[in-house]
C-alpha cells in the first residue's frame, strides 16, 4: 500500500474548517472563532507504527512557513471508538467527538488520537494524520498548530491498544482517555495510560442495570479522576438551584426539604436525584422522579412556619432557564438565564478545564446507584 499525501482542503478538512462552536466559560465575550484549518495530512492503509510516528514530524516539515515548527499542546487526548469500524472514518460518534476536540484547538491544543479497534478483521493498521492550524481568538498573537491521528487497529492488536497508543503520547502532559459512545471496561489495560478518564453516563441510560454501571464508574474513579460529561452539562442547573439558597432567608430551608421532584431523561434524572439525596441527606421516599424531555427540579421545603418552593426549569418554547423561589409569606425570587449550551464541544471544554476528581459527583453517583 502506498501512503496518500493529501493537500489542504481535503473532504475531512472541509467538513470541519467551518466549525464555529462557542467555547465554554459561561457565555464569554469571545464571539465566534474561525475554525481550525487543515494544513497537511497523510494517510496509509496497512501502515507500520514506525511510519505513523515518522509521518507526524514530516507533516510539520512539509507545512509552509516556520511557524508550523512550533508545537503547542496541553495534553494528549485518546478517543476510543465503540465497536469495529470498516474504515478510519466510519464511526460517526467518534468523528463527532474528534471534531469537538478540534474545535477547542485554538484555546486548548492537544494531540488527539482516535483509536478504532476492530478485533475480528484481518490484522492491519490503517492510519491517517493531519496537522491543523488555529488562529488566535482575538486576532492578536500566534496561530496554534496541533496534530490529529486516526488509527484503525484490526486483528489481535485491537486487544492491546496501549501498545499502539503509547509511542504517541506526549511526554509530561496529562493523558485523557475519552469513550465518546460507550463506557470503559475496568479491565481494559489501555486505562493504565490514563491520567483522567472522560465518560458520559448519558450513554448508559438505556442499560438494564444502571446501578451496576454507576458502581463500576465509582470503582474506576478510585484510581484516577473520572469526568462525566453528563455531570458537566448539569452544572448550570446545579448552580441555579444552589444560588436560590444564597439569601440568608432561604438558607434555612435547606434543612427542611420535604420533597425533591426531579424530571428529565433517565441519566440526568438519576444523577440529579442522587446529588440531592447525598447533599441534603434525603430518603428515597422523599424523592419523586418522572420522565420528561427537559430537566426540571423542584424542592418543597419548610423553615419554621414558612413553606417554600424552589424550582429550576425551562419553560416550554423558551430559550431561558428559570430559577424561582417562592414562599408562603409572599416573597419571591426570580432569575432567568440563557439556556446553557449543551453541545459536545462545550461539555468537553468544561471537562478538560479542570482534570481532577469531583467528590460531589462521586457522592451523587453513589446515591444514584441506590435509585437506579
Amino acid at each position, binding site marked *: 500500500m502506498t501512503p496518500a499525501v493529501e493537500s489542504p482542503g481535503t473532504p475531512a478538512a472541509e467538513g470541519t474548517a467551518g466549525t464555529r462552536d462557542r467555547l465554554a466559560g459561561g457565555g464569554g465575550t469571545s464571539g465566534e472563532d474561525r475554525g481550525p484549518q487543515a494544513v497537511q495530512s497523510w494517510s496509509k492503509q496497512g501502515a507500520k507504527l514506525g511510519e505513523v510516528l515518522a509521518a507526524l514530524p514530516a507533516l510539520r516539515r512539509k507545512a509552509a512557513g516556520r511557524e508550523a515548527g512550533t508545537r503547542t499542546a496541553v495534553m494528549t487526548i485518546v478517543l476510543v471508538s465503540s465497536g469495529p469500524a470498516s474504515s478510519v472514518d466510519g464511526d460517526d460518534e467518534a468523528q463527532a467527538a474528534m471534531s469537538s476536540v478540534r474545535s477547542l484547538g485554538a484555546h486548548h491544543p492537544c494531540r488527539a488520537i482516535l483509536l478504532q479497534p476492530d478485533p475480528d478483521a484481518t490484522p492491519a493498521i490503517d492510519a491517517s494524520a493531519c496537522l491543523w492550524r488555529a488562529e488566535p481568538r482575538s486576532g492578536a498573537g500566534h496561530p496554534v498548530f496541533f496534530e490529529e491521528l486516526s488509527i484503525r487497529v484490526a486483528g489481535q492488536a485491537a486487544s492491546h491498544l496501549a501498545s499502539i497508543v503509547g509511542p504517541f503520547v506526549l511526554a509530561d502532559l496529562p493523558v485523557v482517555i475519552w469513550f465518546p459512545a460507550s463506557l470503559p471496561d475496568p479491565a481494559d489495560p489501555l486505562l493504565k495510560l490514563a491520567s483522567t478518564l472522560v465518560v458520559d453516563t448519558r450513554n448508559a441510560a438505556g442499560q438494564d442495570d444502571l446501578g451496576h454501571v454507576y458502581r463500576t464508574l465509582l470503582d474506576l474513579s478510585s484510581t484516577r479522576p473520572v469526568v462525566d460529561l453528563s455531570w458537566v452539562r448539569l452544572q448550570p442547573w446545579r448552580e441555579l438551584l444552589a444560588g436560590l439558597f444564597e439569601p440568608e432567608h432561604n438558607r434555612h430551608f*435547606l434543612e427542611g426539604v420535604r420533597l425533591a421532584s426531579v424530571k428529565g431523561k433517565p441519566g440526568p434524572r438519576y444523577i440529579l436525584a442522587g446529588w440531592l439525596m447525598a447533599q441534603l441527606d434525603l430518603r428515597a421516599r422523599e424523592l419523586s422522579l418522572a420522565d420528561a424531555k427537559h430537566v426540571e427540579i423542584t424542592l418543597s421545603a419548610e423553615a419554621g412556619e414558612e413553606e417554600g418552593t424552589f424550582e429550576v426549569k425551562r419553560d416550554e418554547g423558551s430559550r431561558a432557564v428559570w430559577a424561582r423561589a417562592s414562599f408562603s409569606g409572599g416573597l419571591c425570587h426570580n432569575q432567568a438565564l440563557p439556556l446553557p449550551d449543551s453541545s459536545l464541544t462545550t461539555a468537553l471544554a468544561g471537562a478538560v478545564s479542570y482534570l481532577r476528581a469531583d*467528590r460531589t459527583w462521586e457522592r451523587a453517583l453513589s*446515591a444514584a446507584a441506590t435509585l437506579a
Partner: protein
Amino acid sequence: MNGAGGAGGPASARSRGVGGPAGDKHGAGGAGGPASARSRGVGGPAGDKQGAGGAGGQAGDKNSLPRNVLAEGLETVRRAPPGALVVFGASGDLTHRKLLPALEQLSRRRLLPAAFGIVGVARTEMSDDGFRDLMASAVPDAGPGWAEIIKNSYYITGDYSHPDTFSALQKKLSELDESLGTGGNRTFYLATVPDVFGEVALALGKVGLNKPAGGGTARLVIEKPFGHDRETARELDATLHQVFDEDQIYRIDHYLGKETVQNVLALRFANAIFEPLWNRNYVDHVQVTVAETVGVEKRGNFYEKAGALRDIVQNHVMQVLSLTLMEPPGSVDAEGIRGEKVKALRSVVVPAERDVPNIAVRGQYDSGWVEGNAVPGYRQEEGVSKDSQTETYVALRLTVDNWRWAGVPIYVRTGKRLPKRVTEVALQFKEVPHLAFPKEAALGLNPNALVMRIQPDEGVTLRFGAKVPGQAFVVRDVLMDFSYGAAFLEEPPDAYERLLLDAMAGDPTLFIRSDEVDTAWGIVQPLLDAWSAGAAPLAGYAAGSWGPRAADALLERDGRQWRAP
C-alpha cells in the same frame, strides 16, 4: 411517575445529622466525607471581617447560617452574595460603557445572585423606567437574565449635596432587603467625577448607610484618580475615613483586574525556576512599557489637567511594578499581597527634585503617522491648549533600595501615539560571564530576557540562545513563547467584570489600599513639583515614533537601550 420511594433507599441514611448512605467508600456524606445538609456545622470559612464570603456560595456569612451544601463542588466559581449595588453617576458614560455591560456579563455567566437589585443615583432627571431603558440600551444583545435584573432596578434623581437624595436611597435599600432578600448587603459604586467622592461618602455616613445594616455589609468602590497629587489624595483619604473604615473602601485600578497582571503573581510564585533568578545577581535591569497608539481622543479637557505621569505612571505602572518587585507573600490573600506591594513601593527611591532632569524625560507628541493614518499633534487636539505643557510621554529611571534589587535600574516608559499598543514588563538578564564562542559566532546573541506581555498578546516570552543548524557553530536568539489564550479554555473576564464581582463578594486583593496610593504619590510627587517649576523641558516627538530622543539618551548613558516590543 416512577416514585423512588419505598424501602429501597439507603438503609442507614436517615441517621439525621450523622451521615449519608453507609457502607460505601464513596458514600454520600459517610464518615470522613463532607457532611450533608442536616449534619452540617454552622458557618463556614469567613470572608472579610464584614462577613463577605460569596466565593462559590460556600461561606456561611452569618454565625448561625447553615452552609449551602448544594454549592459544594462548585467552588471554582466565585459568585456574588445577595445584595444591592448602588451606582452613583448612573446616567454617566462609565456606567453605560463599562459597568452595565460588565454586570450583564456577570449575569450571563451565572455569577450574580437571584436576590440582586441595582439602584442608580444621579443628578440627571430620570424615572425608574427611564433608567431601565438606559440599562437595556447599554447591552443591546443581552441574555434573558438581564431583563430580570432590569426589573429589579431603580433610579433616584437627586443632588449629591441634598440629604433627601440619601434618605430616598436609604428607604429604597430597606425596601429591597424586604422584597428581594438582599440581606442588608450594599455596594456603593462611585462612577462620578472625582470632585464629589468625599461629598457622597459623607452624605452616606449622615444617613447611616456607611454602617452594615442588619448583619450585612457596606462597601464603597471608587475609581481613580485618587487625588490630583499627594496632598489632595491625603485629603480625600481623610474625608473617606471619617465615615468608612479602610476595609470598606475598594479603590479600583482596572489594570489589576486584568488576568495577565494577576498572572505575574502566578508566574513568580507558582514556579520554582524563575524566583531564584529574580534578583540583582541575575537581572541586569527591568523595563516597563505601557504604550498606546491612541491620542487623547475626546478627553482633551481631562488630560490637560492630568498628563501621562498622573494618568498612567502613578497608578497603572506603580501597580505592575510593585507586583514585579515585591517579595513572596506569606499567603496569597488580600493583606499578604497588598502588604508586600507597599513594601516594594517603599523601597523605590524617591527622587530628589534636583535629580529629576537626570532620571526623567517628558514629551509631547507632534503630528505624524500611526497605523497608516495621519494624526494631529497634541496641541491640535480638541480641548487642548495651543501652548499646552502637558506631557503625553514619560520615561523614568528608578532605583530600588533593598537586597533584592539594589543596583538594578528600573526603566519605565509610557506614552500616547506610539507605534504599537503594548504593555509589558521585561526582565533583562546579565550577559554570560564568559562567552566561549568566537565573537563572530555569537553576533545574533543577546542577553536572556523574560518578558511578561500584559496586553494585547497576553503571555510570557523567554529569549535564549540556540545553535543555528548547520556545520558552523553559530548561536542566535530564539524565543520560547507561552500564549495565554492558547492554553486555557476559560474566556478571561473583562477587568470591570472581575473587579465588580470581587467588590460585591468582599475580596479586596485586587484593590488598592490607602498606603499604596500614598506611597505611589510619594514617588511621583517630586517629578510633578520639579516639572511645574520648569525643571525639565518638554521634548517633542513625532506621533508614531517611540518617544523623544532624550528618552533613548536616558538609557544610552547607562550603556543600554530600549527594547523593541
